[in-house]
């Protein structure tokens, strides 16, 4: 019996990447795009087929292999969409009520933490995340160093993450 190919990945190993692929697809297509889940499923199906057929032999890591398939599929989707639905209105997606509730709860927790922050932290968050200034621009606006901006952002984020994890 021929020894099994040590590099060839198992077909189900791609399923562990569902979250990463979903993130990348939603970022590219927009989270409110109702097609994102279908695109993710197509990517996974395509990856499994390539492993099954031996087209992917494990020369690169599974992650890199999936990154390539995902990027190509996103480009195809955007091209297709631009061609077919250039002027058509986007359908309104139906949000999952459970996800919605969870997100609302998290938003409430974040708002609570933000309200309790000292103004110097809130101001940095406002300029950096809401106004989308760069770290250097925030530093100039508040007359502090860019390093201090990073420290304040990281500190505030840590507090928020802690509150959400509870």
């Amino acid at each position, binding site marked *: 019996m021929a020894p099994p190919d040590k590099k060839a990945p198992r077909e189900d190993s791609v399923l562990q*990447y569902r*979250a*990463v692929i979903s*993130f*990348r697809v939603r970022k590219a297509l927009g989270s409110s795009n109702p097609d994102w889940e279908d695109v993710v499923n197509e990517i996974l199906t395509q990856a499994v087929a390539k492993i099954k057929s031996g087209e992917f032999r494990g020369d690169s*890591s599974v*992650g*890199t292999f*999936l*990154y390539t398939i*995902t*990027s190509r599929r996103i480009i195809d989707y955007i091209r297709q969409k631009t061609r077919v639905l250039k002027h058509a209105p986007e359908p309104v997606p139906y949000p999952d009520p459970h996800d919605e509730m969870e*997100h609302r709860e*998290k*938003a409430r927790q*974040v*708002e609570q933490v*933000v309200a309790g922050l000292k*103004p*110097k932290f*809130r*101001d940095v*968050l*406002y*300029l*950096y*995340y*809401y*106004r*989308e200034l*760069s770290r250097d621009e925030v530093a*100039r*606006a*508040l*007359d502090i160093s860019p390093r201090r901006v990073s420290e304040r*952002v990281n500190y505030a*984020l840590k507090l*928020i*993450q802690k509150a*959400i994890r509870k």
Partner: protein
Amino acid sequence: MKKCKYEHYIDDYLLDKLKPDDQAEFEEHYFICPHCFAKMDQQSEIVQILRKEGVLPTPGEACARHRPAPWWRRLLARLRRGRQSSIK
């Protein structure tokens, strides 16, 4: 835990501030780095909430106090500081 060298890309990636080359590099990276992906996934939701209208105080309430002093006042302060240190 050791920090990944790509971690500093997370914020800029979420805010679409990375250069196209850096963006592609980071996207390829987080497919093979569970640490960066976990951190970014968690941060992404927080960033989305922070970017919503009304979550962070408006500039009038927040930033007015922190507007930098006019240039001439800062220059004056620097000169004063310089003079004080030379006297010492």
